[in-house]
């Protein structure tokens, strides 16, 4: 079979057994790969209203059809589940080198079910799957240590998906790590790994991925790279990477600062792209990516060198500005600590920023204030181990703010803490967050791109934003079938050129658009089935009603009414009813093959 391996590996942790079954090619045809296949399998495999903490809640590890080839950016992997944090679907994307290795081992996807009777590491070498006790050696290890240990103990070329102590302790924002700095960050997959007593999956594949006539394919990919990816317009990704956003977002008054109380950070120039370029040691790439956006930095902190990849923009925003931290070395260290303990930095920075805010406001003294470097650097360990203030912080932003009677101070949607764009500086992000299928997330639609970066769309109006977000969500759904990274500004024509190799026929842009919309609607059905209602498509009230006093977005108010009106417009344009439920007509039009 070309591109697909046609195989799914099932890992049953309760029984310590594995099995291989054919990939459902009917679904692969309809939903392509990546997000589409994930959602179709989730629909089938997850009993409706399943308690996400139940041992029966599966974790999916999914590749795209181009993983393991030369197609740049397509090595991304999805870790997916019904999130124990949001109660709805969660597809978390991660780069690195795990996805190609999974393909070379002979699988398109892994489905992990059950709960191991004791902490376990699963090793996979091609068709040999083994369950190894994680105690006493691996359990408790930080992420870099467990990766290194498994390279030594299992295979020097092993690629590892692992959790740090935060996952073992079921911290709601514990992430799944690979290649040390790459995180399937959002939605608590790490906590689910921990709950299943699964410390790591290590894999080594020595097989091949077929593509038909490989020499012809190589020549075409070489051309595609030259024409579309390694272009002067796109080289900023390599030259700067995501830190380029700091100045842009700050300049628009949309940089979350001190728990979203301001949109402009006075020390942004100390943690912007220019500042990070000064401490850059090396450029790094994910497997099979010619762009190489990753920055490996080194900086001295208190006589010690802190070295590592990142932080990326979201981390700079949430763990920098949002915590009032303008010290680049401290930020590097905080990022390293979150990586090592195994925690998503967006939620780490959001929760800590909230705790700082509660302290400053005299609501509850957590002993850490905005800009307090000592308290800031002590926090990751406390959070990851649920000790000291960490015990309460591990509630997450929503429950923590609610406990102290100030729910309005928690910046989250569907219990997922918001990333680094304040909608008051970029109005389109309201609906982007509220209608995102996995909760507070910027990766489904990105009005920031035109409201701030290109300036092609006005940032201070809700007009046109329903349609804009719908287009963005459908497009990202197509892209996540690929699974192409956001750092390739791929268009429909380029996607169809690649998919022509996959499907061995001409691919129209219209059918791709349909596939994206189909997948988005399938996700909506899944979420509705799990109990989501229109009331969950909300946004923190404060973002709609309270304008910033200072900065470029000062005085702008979105209003609750405009948001409600545009939410209804969004439903209408989507072909959903007023409760946000897809109509039968829409589902037929899209060829969605499941029903509520």
């Amino acid at each position, binding site marked *: 079979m070309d591109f697909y391996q046609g195989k799914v590996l099932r890992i049953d942790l309760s029984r310590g057994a594995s099995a291989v079954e054919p990939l459902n090619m009917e679904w692969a045809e309809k939903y392509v790969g990546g997000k589409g296949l994930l959602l179709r399998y989730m629909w089938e495999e997850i009993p409706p209203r399943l308690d996400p903490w139940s041992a029966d809640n599966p974790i999916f590890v999914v590749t795209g059809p181009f993983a393991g080839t030369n197609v740049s950016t397509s090595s991304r992997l999805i870790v997916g589940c019904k999130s124990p944090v949001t109660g709805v679907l969660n597809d978390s994307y991660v780069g690195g*080198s795990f996805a190609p290795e999974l393909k070379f081992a002979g699988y398109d996807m892994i489905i992990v079910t059950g709960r191991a009777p004791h902490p376990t590491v699963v090793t996979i070498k091609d068709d040999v799957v083994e369950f190894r006790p994680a105690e006493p050696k691996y359990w408790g290890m930080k992420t870099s240590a467990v990766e290194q240990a498994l390279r030594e103990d299992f295979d020097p070329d092993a690629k590892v998906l692992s959790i740090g102590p935060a996952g073992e302790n079921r911290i709601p924002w514990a992430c799944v790590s690979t290649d040390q700095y790459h995180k399937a960050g959002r939605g608590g997959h790490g906590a689910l790994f921990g709950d299943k007593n699964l410390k790591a999956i290590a894999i080594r*594949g020595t097989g091949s991925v077929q593509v038909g006539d*490989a020499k012809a394919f190589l020549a075409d990919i070489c051309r595609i790279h030259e024409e579309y990816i390694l272009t002067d317009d796109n080289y900023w990704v390599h030259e700067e990477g995501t830190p380029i956003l700091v100045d842009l977002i700050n300049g628009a008054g949309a940089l979350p600062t001190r728990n979203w109380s301001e949109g402009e950070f006075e020390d942004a120039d100390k943690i912007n792209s220019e500042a990070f370029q000064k401490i850059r040691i090396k450029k790094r790439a994910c497997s099979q990516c*010619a762009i190489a956006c990753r920055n490996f930095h080194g900086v001295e902190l208190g006589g010690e060198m802190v070295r590592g990849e990142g932080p990326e923009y979201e981390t700079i925003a949430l763990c920098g500005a949002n915590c009032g931290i303008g010290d680049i070395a401290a930020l590097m260290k905080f990022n390293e600590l979150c990586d090592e303990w195994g925690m998503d930095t967006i939620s780490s920075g959001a929760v800590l920023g909230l705790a700082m805010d509660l302290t400053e406001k005299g609501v509850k003294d957590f002993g850490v204030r905005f800009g307090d470097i000592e308290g800031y650097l002590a926090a990751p360990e406390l959070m990851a181990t649920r000790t000291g203030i960490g015990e309460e912080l591990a509630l997450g932003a929503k429950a923590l703010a609610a406990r102290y009677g100030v729910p309005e101070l928690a910046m989250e949607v569907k219990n997922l803490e918001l990333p680094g764009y304040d909608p008051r500086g970029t109005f389109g992000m309201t609906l982007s967050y509220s209608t995102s299928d996995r909760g507070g997330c910027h990766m489904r639609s990105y009005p920031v791109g035109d409201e701030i970066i290109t300036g092609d769309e006005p940032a201070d109006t809700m007009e046109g934003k329903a349609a804009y977000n719908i287009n963005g969500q459908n497009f990202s759904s197509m892209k996540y079938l690929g699974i192409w990274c956001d750092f390739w500004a791929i268009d429909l024509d380029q996607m169809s050129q690649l998919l022509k190799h996959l499907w061995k026929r001409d691919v129209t842009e219209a059918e791709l658009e349909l596939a994206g919309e189909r997948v988005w609607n399938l996700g909506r059905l899944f979420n509705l089935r799990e109990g989501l209602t229109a009331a969950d498509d909300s946004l923190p009230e404060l973002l709609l009603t309270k304008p910033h006093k200072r900065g470029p977005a000062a005085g702008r108010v979105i209003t609750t009414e405009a948001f409600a009106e545009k939410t209804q417009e969004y439903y209408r344009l989507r072909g959903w009813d007023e409760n946000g439920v897809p109509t039968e007509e829409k589902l037929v039009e899209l060829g969605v093959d499941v029903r509520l």
Partner: protein
Amino acid sequence: MPHVMISRKKCTGCHMCELACSAYHENAYRPSVARLFSEVNPTTADIKGHTCLQTGCAKCQQACPHDAIVTRRITVKPRGFFESKEKLGDTVEGYVLVVDDEKCTNCGECYEVCPTGVIHEHPDRHVAFKCDLCDGDPQCIAFCQNKYVYAVDLKIDRKDKELLKTVPGEATA
């Protein structure tokens, strides 16, 4: 002779060279049998390229008891850009060491002596396999495409030039 080198400093660890190498030779992506590889420590970002130095090294050829490593004339004209292109020009004439599958007995002598670890037993064909510079269009160079990286380079060494004078045309060791 002409041989490929990976710059430790510039390489980003994307493995494009290995992927392209395997696809060219195996008609499928299979980096575990690539003719070169980049050893990457993801935590420290330490990267080390492993490539065949061809006739400039020739330890495999010297060790082979069956004369199965053959010196073959080659014209290397890489499709992509490479660091030394301005110095060497578009085309480099020289020799490359290739395995004669008919003569190779898979005895493993060459596997032991290769200083860069790039000659192995092929898992399917059970003979030695190594870099042959892709018949003159090295895919590793073609796919090191980022102009800010260009980590895979084509080099020649002094031994090459001498050999070129003394070994005209097709030759065996």
